[in-house]
């Protein structure tokens, strides 16, 4: 596609801009809405220009608003979300890199079967197995606990599969050189494989953190104690007001704030992220 055709260039750009608009417009509306007061929002179409209540709304959401709806305050929920996302990220990476190590480098009975069982779980995301998983978690008494919130989400195969593929590209001679150099299996893992997987781990962390941060359905099911509410659930609760007006300006302010951590992570880890997905260090 090196030829220079003005019409084609125009067309591709038009589609690109259209796509961007479709994605960006709701975000823009949310940001705008979070800067108006409630009477402006209730009295007609959503304005398209920023209003004057920016500081007021954001101060309110960060200090008192959520408490008014019987929710923990915003920072508490943000902390819950953060803990959940981090535990899921670290847990998933730890488990999957170790299981991939076992599958690729050790010969044990039913190794292939083990791999396929792990692989099949790829086809069963939380939403599909939500009833049995809920039953198990409930029977184990893990409702309303960090364990119940995170463990079922940690157990999945995506990352295992990616690490397995990466380990298979590491030349066998690397392992052999390490063996001649007197490194046992765990030393090889720590000294050679982990550093080599650095970029992969970085890229996966970004994906998994966002995955954990946006979890909605599962936390909603397993927690009834407001102390465990995450941001995503909090936003939902704010919209379901029994009587009275929904504080849309606060809901929007809350949404905008909730969007920030994933955006920041993507911005700051972008280089690592792209390298991890495209480059293999060898």
């Amino acid at each position: 596609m090196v030829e220079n055709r003005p019409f084609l260039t125009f067309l591709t750009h038009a589609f690109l801009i259209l796509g961007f608009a479709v994605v960006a417009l709701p975000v823009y509306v949310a940001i705008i809405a979070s800067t108006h007061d409630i009477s402006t929002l209730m009295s007609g179409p959503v304005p398209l220009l920023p209003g004057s209540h920016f500081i007021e709304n954001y101060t309110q959401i960060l200090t008192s608003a959520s408490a008014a709806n019987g929710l923990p305050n915003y920072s508490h929920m943000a902390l819950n979300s953060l803990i959940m996302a981090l535990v899921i990220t670290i847990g998933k990476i730890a488990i999957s890199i170790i299981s991939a190590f076992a599958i690729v480098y050790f010969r044990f009975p039913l190794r292939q079967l083990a791999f396929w069982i792990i692989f099949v779980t790829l086809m069963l995301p939380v939403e599909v197995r939500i009833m049995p998983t809920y039953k198990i978690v409930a029977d184990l008494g893990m409702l309303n606990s960090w364990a119940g919130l995170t463990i079922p989400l940690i157990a999945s195969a995506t990352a295992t599969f990616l690490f397995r593929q990466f380990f298979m590209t590491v030349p066998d001679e690397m392992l052999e050189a390490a063996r001649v150099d007197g490194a046992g299996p765990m030393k090889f893992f720590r000294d050679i494989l982990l550093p080599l997987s650095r970029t992969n781990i970085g890229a996966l962390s970004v994906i998994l953190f966002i995955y954990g941060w946006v979890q909605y359905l599962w936390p909603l099911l397993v927690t009834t104690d407001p102390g465990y509410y995450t941001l995503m659930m909090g936003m939902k609760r704010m919209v379901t007001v029994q009587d009275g007006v929904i504080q849309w300006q606060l809901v929007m302010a809350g949404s905008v704030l909730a969007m920030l951590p994933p955006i920041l992570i993507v911005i700051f880890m972008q280089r690592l992220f792209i390298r991890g997905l495209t480059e293999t260090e060898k």
Partner: protein
Amino acid sequence: MAGIKIAGVSKIYAGGVKAVNSVSIDIADGEFIVLVGPSGCGKSTLLRMVAGLEAISEGEVSIGGKVVNRMEPAERDIAMVFQNYALYPHMTVYQNLAYGLKNRGTPKAEIDARVAEAARMLEITQYLERKPRALSGGQRQRVAMGRAIVRKPAAFLFDEPLSNLDAKLRVSMRGEIKRLQRRLGTTSIYVTHDQLEAMTLADRLVVLNGGRIEQIGSPLEVYHAPASTFVASFIGSPAMNLVAGEIHGNRLAIGPALIDLAGAPPASGAVTVGLRAEDLRLAHEGETVLPMTVDYVEELGAQRLVHGLVGDQMLTASMPTDMVIGESLSLTIDQDRLHFFSASDGKRIGSGTNVATDKTTAAVETA
């Protein structure tokens, strides 16, 4: 420093395929042994069994008098240089060299000293802080050798270490490996498929074919008295001419040519006759003549290779460059330069320099 004894070693893969078939080699302390053969002859497998990277199905390997069959590679006191170098890409050159020592709990000061010494020997001191990625192929190869040297092992094992380098670098690295091995006096086993590399490096050559030893001997012994047609065609460039011949009484017939054999004929009936291209020369008056129809000529600069037919058999002769080559040549060969092989199994039939059976003496002289 230690000798290595390989006694009746076999590698049998699942399904009964014998990749290495009861191989026995006695390697003296400080000797440079080259395992050479075409791909799939089991030379790498044999080396990897000595290294401990591959389980030994049958037989026994001992290093320095200790049987090492059940030992981990690290316990065998060997160091290995791999074909693709296998440097740790995330470590600096220094860390690459130091890793094996660190794992053995060598004190920091000694690691520093040994790495510095190896780096100086290989002239890689200025690259110690670099990552392997930032090095050229030749430099990486040196680092890989450095990783072997710092350990001061009982033996070096080389697995085709030069095959990833370009031709010119290969020649100079070949010389360096040889010099280094001389200087350190460390027993070495070197695997290659390149017969020239094998000839130039080896104290003793081990020619392998189909998992079996075809011949063991110094490069010159193997060159001058190949034990079989396989060795004859594998060692030496251009390859030895192997033609069908027939011995009647004391006359050898090759195509239309008849050669009188002085003394008792080594065999009678059909034989395979080996003639080195460089042993063939133009016939003077009154000498037996092998008439050759010239097919084409390869100019190599220092010599030229003339390819042609004697009777209906292809022959290659090495000729000086100062003569005009016409349509046909009258060649001859001295009788003591003829090699005879059995026409049925390809084994050598007497004559020529005898195959040395004493393996240890051969090690010393060939340079």
